């Protein structure tokens, strides 16, 4: 099987202010394929938490619109995950 590729997949960072925003993230996780990096799972998302999650390129647009609509500030930590995966091997063979 060819290895999974993560071309142009993105990692978002969102600082959750309150319960309402936590529920917005949980709702997004129900309708999008979201891989939570921190915390480990959707259920752990809570107010006053910084949440990191990975989404596909396709879904990242709808995620960004939803966050913009709800005026939830966010960062894109990783813009192209596949690139970062390849870049982690940055030490030459001994």
């Amino acid at each position, binding site marked *: 099987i060819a290895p*999974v590729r993560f071309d142009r997949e993105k990692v978002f960072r969102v600082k959750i202010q309150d319960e309402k925003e936590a529920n917005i993230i949980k709702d997004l996780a129900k309708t999008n394929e979201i*891989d*939570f990096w921190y915390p480990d*799972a959707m259920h752990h998302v809570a107010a006053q*938490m910084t949440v990191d999650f990975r989404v596909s390129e396709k879904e990242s647009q709808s995620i960004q619109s939803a966050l913009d609509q709800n005026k939830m500030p966010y960062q894109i930590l990783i813009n192209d995950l596949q690139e970062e995966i390849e870049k982690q091997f940055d030490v030459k*063979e001994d």
Partner: protein
Amino acid sequence: KPGRHSYRKYNSWDKIVAWTEKMVNKNPKMVSRIQIGSTVEDNPLYVLQIGKGGESRKAIFMDCGIHAREWVSPAFCQWFVYQAIKTYGRKKIMTKLLDRMNFYVLPVFNVDGYIWSWTQNRMWRKNRSKNQNSKCIGTDLNRNFNVSWNSFHNTGNPCQDIYRGPAPESEKETKAVTDFIRSHLKTIKAYITFHSYSQMLLFPYGYTTDKPPNHGDLDKVAKIGTDVLATRYETRYIYGPIASTIYPTSGSSLDWAYDLGIKHTFAFELRDKGKFGFLLPESRIKSTCRETMLAVKFIAKYILKHTS
């Protein structure tokens, strides 16, 4: 041949197996390899016993790689073994530790998942067991321990990344580790598990916000451990009980070991804080391992001095 192993790089499972053999062959008086079981896909689970003493000495059990994508964790266990051997007889603290204690080091806990993260899906977390009545693969080994195992409903879905498995210790990997620890309980005085990322040093409990009886002790050790870690490169770690520092978790190895009777159990969440997340570049492995070594040596010294 699996190619050359490097402590400054991420190593595939084949390289790590070859490395364990090399460690034993080159240091027969200091290192022995114990196969404690095998995985769902019949890969061996190897523990390296490091130390000069016999089986009856105090010991610390350390495991790495319980979550497949957390690659810097196995890198640290390899680094620890390397430093222990290299500095024995040269550095006072390590010499004293290894003369009086043993370290049981499980370099990769979730071997099948680690291989899968190398060959198929870099973002994989769980093991690779098949789940009945579900197309979804894998159990989160760090929710599969028999401690408050099913206290949270959200770990019961096989398609979730934090799926607890069909029963406590249902996974061969979990059972191999728990059987080994139970059979060495007389000597194992501390349990340390290594994860990534977010730069934290955690201790029980995860399944409740109640404090364990020796909370003050654990808190003090964790505080000093993070202070010592920061002396190298000023890397800031936070510390505290799992449940109140991150979030409540059930079925974790840390809580299980503590409730079994090992009253000093810690979990490191290694670098970084999120710029790279699970994709910490190899160029940062060395500094991550060097600073973590300081904290682990402090904890080991503390255990040597304060446990009976």
